[in-house]
């Protein structure tokens, strides 16, 4: 376990915690970008260059901006005066803690059988491209269709209903 891993893990977890704990919604959105970039660096730490940069491009460049736009469009940029947590927050917290306990227990239990340090895989972008165009071409097409449908769907859902307003 390298020092870099601990720093990046701390950054990611801190970003995630801040995103879920801060009061101001815009601060939460900015904190979650820290978590996203931390994850991207963790991907780089795992020698997954392509996935890491795609993570930054998609999450920091697109999703975070989208979230921020949504916050401003719903007038959520002011710090709310009353509690930001829902009424049954305790139940949610207990469930999350339970999930973490189970996951952590599972990981630590199986630590012995998990594979150890292996040789650094040499995967170039060319390999990924070849895989995408041969073995994974059907998922790629489906994702392309999904993205198109999602884009059209999002536009239609968020479109102002003019006829009803008049």
């Amino acid at each position: 376990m390298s020092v870099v891993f601990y720093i990046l893990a701390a950054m990611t977890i801190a970003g995630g915690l801040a995103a879920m704990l801060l009061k101001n919604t815009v601060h939460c959105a900015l904190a979650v970008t820290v978590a996203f970039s931390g994850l991207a660096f963790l991907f780089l730490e795992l020698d997954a260059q392509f996935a890491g940069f795609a993570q930054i491009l998609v999450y920091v460049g697109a999703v975070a901006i989208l979230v921020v736009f949504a916050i401003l469009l719903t007038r959520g940029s002011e710090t709310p005066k009353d509690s930001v947590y829902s009424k049954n927050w305790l139940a949610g917290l207990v469930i999350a803690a339970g999930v973490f306990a189970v996951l952590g227990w599972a990981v630590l239990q199986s630590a012995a059988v998990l594979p150890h340090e292996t040789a650094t895989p040499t995967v170039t972008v060319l390999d990924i491209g070849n895989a995408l165009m041969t073995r994974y071409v059907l998922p790629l097409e489906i994702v392309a269709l999904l993205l198109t449908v999602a884009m059209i769907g999002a536009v239609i859902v968020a479109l102002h209903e003019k006829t009803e307003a008049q």
Partner: protein
Amino acid sequence: MIEKMDQIFVSLLHWLISFLPAFLQPFVGVVICVAVIVCLYPALFALAVLLERKGLGRMQNRYGPNRVGPFGILQPIADGVKSLTKEDIVPLSADAVVHFLAPVVLVVAVFMGFAVLPMGRNMVLVDMDAGLLFYFAMSATTELSVFMAGWSSRNKYSLLGAMRAVAQMISYEVPLLMSSVAVVMITGSLSLTKIVAAQDSYTGIFPHWYIFTPWGFAGFVMYAIATTAETNRSPFDLPEGESELVAGYHTEYSGFKFALFFLGEYVAMFSISGLGTTLFLGGWSAPFSFLTWVPSWIWFFSKIMLSICVFIWVRGTLPRLRQDQLMNFAWKFVLPMTLLNLFVAALWHFLGEGWQRWVFCSAILVVAYVAMGLVEMRSDHFGPRKYRYAE
């Protein structure tokens, strides 16, 4: 001798780090490179600001700055001293932390892009396999810093400017990426060094730059348009639109933080021109085969400065667009053209050598361009504004 001049910076670096113990060498080498980049581009920024002010002046039949030093060449230094000695004002209701972080994030993200740009033969900081992807990931981060600046200022002009800027940058990032993808398709690599190497050969005296192919030319034009919008330059400078929004997202910035924004904007211009040079203009390769004796880094930097001059020229010429014109232009003209260009690039690849591919590809692009121009100029959203006077 020629070889030596070409590699002078590379050998200088090797000579410098050869004094150090072996385990320190890679680390110190990177630090030196970063330091050079961080010093070089602000210096070029000063030069560009002077060029811009003098050039715009001449285009408007004025002198431009001519007071500080002979012909005003010390003006950037005076500007720098002025902005550094100014009071750093943070509005009372501003979000101080985000307000402080915004310019820092911007400058860091902008400088990160230089890590993968090949500035000469063997002169690239990190020869990354996914270099282009890295570059776009970094330039996507600047959008967030623009939003941070606009939102944290608690000023409606700042927020409006930031929202305009972010909307514009996202809209034009799509054609920017699409026009670059055509190059990636033809080269078969995301690595910028490989893209330059693919263009570094000659037919007769003429180079194999991608701009000298039909799809490359169309791609370059689209790339240039998208770049102008991406860097918020005139005629797409609505985010700053000083006649409407005071100064857009950096209205509430002063002193050093404002200088950082200003620097970030110009350095982003350099870096995105550098990328355009790499993708379409053959990077550091010489424009004619008989000029290959000139060091490669000279070519790279002269191409960058030339693109800056074009930026200035365009700024001196065109008036600012309206917001709806800007958006319609991105989504209804530039994006379809870049998508078509992808198709044409594929066609170019599969038609093989010969005159047919030149004719077919050029014909498709020209017909599409003329037809789309005719159709869209006639539409209400896109064409000349029709005024409806009160009856």
